């Protein structure tokens, strides 16, 4: 059974280490306890010993920087090959018999879990469904640290083949400013302390999908590093609802939602206040030319934000069709990377769950996210009298480094005006 060689954690503060050099070559047989590599931390150079015997296989070259807990190579059983290792690596998220002693700190290799298929089996997606991928695609994914869960296949019956991996790799290169880019993330293995046995532990350990890890990492970073402030506004929707009814009633093929109007209104408001279509970078504020709007979609695996490109130039009907298609494919896990990467502004709508208002965490590197609550009947005061009205509360979360309070307020005012006099959204 394959044994992964992972970057060990030498100190609690260590997040990554450098593989100084391998002391073995691919294909060499290694005995348990043999020194196989040297790693370099900010403090010292340490030797890494083989935790098991096996045939050595490197995943990264000398000098590579590897995150703690990520595999650098593997020790294969005789007869086992790369393809088999992927199976093991993919299902290694629930380690049972972790072999790393916390004290020795430098022991590295972790035995693959007993439940892992040894060779030749397709890895399971984290929801338990089998991923169909060609052997070569699996091999390439492993070599380049891609998780097949995030790649949609173009082969027969959606099988992932070589060209899909190549497409994912080329999509990931230019997408440095990507928003939700799970594909760009190498599968991160948790540091392997003595892992709790799921049985009898009083809880079920649900392994992290790489999407879950990306969500965790990006949103933690955002909430910790981006100075958020929040602006809340109530929008009256009576006119919009009437208009929507009229539109849907008069055109048989069209069924636009309130959310489609919101996407359009956000795009139009961004056009009026271009400062909101921007992101922070150390060199300067990036002001985007296109108005691309990310729409948060809940999927069985977690949150993903497909992008409606140049939404300001599209009709509500076009936006509606596009969002429907993107959301549907997002739920099936069939989005292509360029369909969820990029985007200058995010809309998160929890109105359908009856949420009155909430404040969303900014989706980096964007500067703004609009949290949309439910549209509900509320009493409002109009000309001194209390009248019933349909009202929706929206909260804009803003990165203060990029957008100041007054600019954010200007955007919200524009957005509110567009929703409350909605005919403008149709022309």
């Amino acid at each position, binding site marked *: 059974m394959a044994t992964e060689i992972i970057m060990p954690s030498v100190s609690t503060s260590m997040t990554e280490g450098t593989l100084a050099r391998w002391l073995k070559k691919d294909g060499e047989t290694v005995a348990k306890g043999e020194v196989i590599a040297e790693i370099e931390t900010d403090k010292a150079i340490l030797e890494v010993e083989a935790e098991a015997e096996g045939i050595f296989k490197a995943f990264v070259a000398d000098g590579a920087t590897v995150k703690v807990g990520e595999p650098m190579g593997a020790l294969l059983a005789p007869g086992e*090959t790369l393809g088999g290792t992927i199976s093991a690596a993919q299902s290694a998220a629930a380690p049972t018999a972790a072999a790393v002693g916390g004290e020795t700190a430098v022991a590295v290799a972790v035995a693959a879990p007993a439940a892992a298929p040894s060779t030749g089996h397709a890895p399971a997606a984290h929801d338990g469904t089998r991923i169909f991928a060609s052997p070569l695609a699996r091999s*390439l994914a492993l070599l380049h640290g891609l998780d097949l869960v995030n790649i949609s296949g173009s082969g027969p019956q959606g099988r992932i083949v070589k060209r899909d991996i190549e497409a994912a790799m080329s999509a990931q290169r230019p997408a440095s400013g990507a928003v939700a880019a799970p594909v760009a993330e190498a599968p991160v293995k948790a540091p392997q302390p003595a892992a709790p046995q799921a049985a009898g532990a009083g809880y079920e350990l649900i392994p992290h999908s790489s999407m879950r890890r990306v969500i965790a990492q990006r949103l933690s970073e955002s909430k910790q590093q981006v100075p958020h402030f929040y602006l809340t506004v109530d929008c009256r929707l009576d006119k919009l609802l009437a208009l929507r009814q009229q539109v849907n009633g008069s055109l048989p093929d069209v069924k636009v939602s309130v959310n489609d109007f919101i996407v359009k209104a956000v795009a139009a408001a961004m056009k009026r206040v271009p400062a909101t279509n921007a992101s922070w970078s150390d060199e300067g504020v990036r002001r985007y030319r296109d108005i691309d709007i990310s729409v948060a979609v809940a999927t069985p695996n977690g949150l993903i934000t497909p992008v409606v490109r140049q939404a300001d130039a599209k009709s509500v009907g076009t936006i509606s069709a596009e969002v429907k298609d993107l959301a549907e494919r997002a739920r099936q896990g069939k989005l292509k990377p360029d369909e969820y990467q990029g985007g200058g502004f995010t809309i998160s709508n929890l109105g359908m769950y009856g949420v009155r208002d909430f404040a969303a965490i900014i989706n980096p590197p964007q500067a703004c996210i609009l949290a949309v609550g439910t549209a509900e009947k509320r009493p409002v005061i109009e000309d001194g009298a209390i009248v019933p009205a349909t009202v929706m509360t929206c909260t804009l979360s803003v990165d203060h480094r990029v957008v100041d309070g007054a600019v954010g307020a200007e955007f919200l005012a524009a957005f509110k005006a567009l929703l409350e006099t909605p005919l403008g959204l149709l022309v």
Partner: protein
Amino acid sequence: MAQEKFDLTVIGGGPGGYVAAIRAAQLGLRTALIEREHLGGICLNWGCIPTKALLRSAEIFDHFKHAGDFGLEVQGASFDLQKIVARSRGVAAQLNAGVKHLLKKNKVQVFEGSGRLAGSGTIRLEQKDGVSEIQSTHIILATGARARAMAPVEPDGRLVWSYKEAMTPERMPKSLLIVGSGAIGIEFASFYRSLGAEVTVVEVRDRVLPVEDAEVSAFAHKAFERQGMKLLTSSSVVSLQKQADSVIAVIDTKGTTTEIRADRVIAAVGIVGNVENLGLEGTGVQVENTHIVTDAWCQTGEPGVYAIGDVAGAPWLAHKASHEGILCVERIAGVDGIHPLDKTRIPGCTYSRPQIASIGLTEAQAKERGYELKVGRFPFMGNGKAIALGEPEGFIKTVFDAKTGELLGAHMVGAEVTELIQGFSIGKTLETTEAELMHTVFPHPTLSEMLHEATLAAYGRAIHT
């Protein structure tokens, strides 16, 4: 004749054209096929198929010669060239009739005659009884190729043969000079040598079968020489002096000239595309080096006009033409899930004795492209079935990418390798790595076990070496 209207018209009824037409009809397109000579094209009538029939006769005759090795007694083994040729023609005729039937069954309208482009969506059809026009939304050019005539060995139908005369000899030449050592030249060399002719092969490159892996070329070279062939590499025919019933050729080998007398010459120096009289002038169809330029979907520079097979460029193989035909038609019909043809997945076969088959990159090509390689070799001598068959000569070579395990190429020489190569073709299409091949159970005893062993050998794990 009334003007007819089709969704698709294919010009040329060879293995590219007729397959394209049948696929189009299957997909519900109203389809026509124009063929000027024989359905099935060169391949079926004057190429792949009839030569296999000839080579089969030669192979059996070879077995007769070695009957004693198998404990058999054959006395007075001889052959009748007329009957060998007649059998070959019969095989071609049978298959030609089969293609006619298939087209009819699929309701493809077949026109005997020549077609040429005549304005957008229009074909001018010239037939024996006159000229008419066909309207067609899509037009596939599948006109194939013909032997290249290169001085001084232009075929004359008498002393200098093209493949056609070489396939229908009236009597055995005592000696034969074959110019060109590609698949066609080598197959004729093998056939005539087996039947007793003195054969000399002249090849301008530095090795025979120059598109094959260098090790395969070297192995085949020795095997052919042992059979008594004379192989002159890095050589070319400088001049040809025609006598009454023979020729004297002057051959230049790296500056040294020699004279060779031979009864007949076979010119097998490549092919040129049939791009003439197609009405391409003034259209967006571009021709380079006698071949029509197409994109990955067989589309030419002229909207609605496509080209497949030999006329659209290398490799000049019937199965490449058929595959392109299907791809092109499915693209036209909007079939989902199709992808351009990956040319590293097209196998090539030469039916000489020993046979040669290959797919993908040679070791040298793979090195050129910067791959780090795992190369495996396994000899026929290590295979039980090969020994039992009395065919211990040959080997299988595999080339893998060391990083990913991708099967980059496979190269074979020996008995029946043309039937073995498909195992690696399937493997490449399924994007195999060495792991799946190693885990595959091959039946014992078969020659196919060598596919397994050659894979194991690349990783230092072959069992029977």
